[in-house]
């Protein structure tokens, strides 16, 4: 980021014009900070059972109530932030790591290689995401890490396609031609010159995909195919509350609000970033 841009970010007028980006960023920062400082925010140990207090409706002591084992739901939701942030970083990171090189190679070399890679990505894309994830989890067994691998795989085509299209237009640019003219190696051109200029759109896509990761992960955990209890994953918490919907609806209510908040935060931030980086798109959405 150039010095000029850093200065711009601290300019109030600049921020006023980009309300979406600021709101999204603030929401995400609040989320991450709450995750980091979970031990200071959560009043109870998220795993601590107190059977005498099971199914306590929200009150002053337990603002979100307690579950069937008397565990404090507020504390579990707060600790759940850590799981969710981890899910986002791991899953988005892994799909970028696989998708981007594939897209770069496809776009840069073109021809047969391009066709093969894109065909492969299209095949993955033809699976409905959650179905592919269920299939993979059924093979690897349900666990946090296996679920994240499954979710990462179905996002690979999104990054592959995007980085391919970016490469196709970037490789015609003068700086790439210049690099080629002075004899830079192909790998260097792809991973240094082209990738560096593709970072911004990839970042926008990653932010927009982050919400999807949370939705998929919580769905799988809700079904019992993802994060296993007693780990406080939001989808898992809702799944647990499902059995008690008649007596304790608050058990599902609050973790679901946390999911909506998180997905909303990343979607708003992603939209804002996209408008900022590509103002042409702004009026379209």
């Amino acid at each position, binding site marked *: 980021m150039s010095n000029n841009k850093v200065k711009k970010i601290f300019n109030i007028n600049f921020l006023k014009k980009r309300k979406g980006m600021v709101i999204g960023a603030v929401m995400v920062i609040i989320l991450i900070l709450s995750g980091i400082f979970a031990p200071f925010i959560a009043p109870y140990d998220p795993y601590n059972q107190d059977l005498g207090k099971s199914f306590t409706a929200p009150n002053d002591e337990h603002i979100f109530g307690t579950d069937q084992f008397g565990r404090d739901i507020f504390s579990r939701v707060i600790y759940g932030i850590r799981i969710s942030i981890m899910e986002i970083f791991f899953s988005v990171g892994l799909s970028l790591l696989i998708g981007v090189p594939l897209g770069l190679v496809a776009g840069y070399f073109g021809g047969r290689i391009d066709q093969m890679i894109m065909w492969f990505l299209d*095949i993955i894309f*033809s699976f409905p995401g959650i179905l592919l994830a269920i299939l993979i989890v059924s093979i690897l067994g349900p666990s946090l890490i296996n679920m994240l691998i499954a979710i990462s795989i179905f996002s690979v085509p999104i990054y592959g396609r995007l980085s391919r299209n970016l490469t196709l237009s970037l490789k015609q640019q003068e700086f790439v031609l210049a690099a080629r003219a002075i004899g830079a190696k192909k790998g260097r051109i792809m991973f240094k010159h082209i990738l560096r200029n593709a970072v911004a759109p990839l970042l926008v896509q990653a932010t927009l995909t982050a919400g999807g990761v949370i939705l998929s992960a919580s769905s799988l955990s*809700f079904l019992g195919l993802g994060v296993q209890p007693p780990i406080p994953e939001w989808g898992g918490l809702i799944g647990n509350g*499902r059995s008690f919907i008649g007596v304790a609806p608050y058990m599902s209510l609050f973790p679901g609000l946390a999911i909506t908040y998180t997905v*909303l935060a990343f979607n708003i931030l992603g939209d804002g970033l996209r408008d900022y980086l590509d103002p042409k798109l702004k*009026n379209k959405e």
Partner: protein
Amino acid sequence: MGSYIAKKLIMLPLVLLVVSFIIFMLLRFIPGDPARLMAGQQATQEDVEMMRSRLGLDKNIFLQYGLFLKNAVQGDLGSSIRSNKPVIEEIASRLPNTAVLAVSSYTIATLVGVTAGVLAAVFQYSWFDQGVMFFAILGASTANFWLALLGMSLFSVKLGILPLMGTGTWQHLVLPTLSLAFYPTALIARMSRSSMLEIIRQDYIRTARAKGLKETVVYIKHALRNAFIPIITVIGLQFGVLFGGAVVTETVFSWPGIGRLLVDSVRYRDYPLIQGTVLMTVFMVVFINFMVDLIIVKIDPRIRFD
């Protein structure tokens, strides 16, 4: 146009072949003896040997796949370990339930989404527009199973006006349909709005207005027709998403469809059933996407001559 469709037509069986190969191979990656896995936990040694010869596990992997394909084409996807019934029968008995749920959600999502999105674009920046956008962003950020539980808790438990779960009457359909439709409705509304906004700014719309045509004619005849192309693409792509969502929704409402069948089969490690259900569902989604492609070619002449 002919060559484009021909290309797609050749690709379709190829894609299905590769997809079936992937599913077939993936299930071979499970550690342990596939014959024992396919025969189930309670199978005797004899059963396992029978399964081994039926699957042709002593032959090489491509021959095995060939055998699997041959059986699949003849409608034999093996038998469920748990119920012992043929997989194809299990799927056939569940499919209508999923179809009812999918079609009703799809219809609602399309009708509400397109109407809301187009009106929002026509009345850009009005309170209606802002409301639609707010709903669209919220809808895309909410977990559908959570929404389903909220609906259950309010309408079934508290108010008692809708059944909690199961099938039978039209009332049983209300909550599953609405919770499944929520997410695609939001996406379709958003896409319809942005597509319509883009079209409204085109020169030929200005020309139509300049000719003195009525606003309604301009919108309905000139703008809407062109705005429909990206809208249909998005609607088509939603079908796969909808199937994925059905897995979760059906589980929440104990709706006896394919989605719940899949989740149950994973839970009981019923591998023939997992293989069959995933295969059938992916085939349907691929086929529907193919049909959407054809419809788009039909209505968008630009693709035909590309």
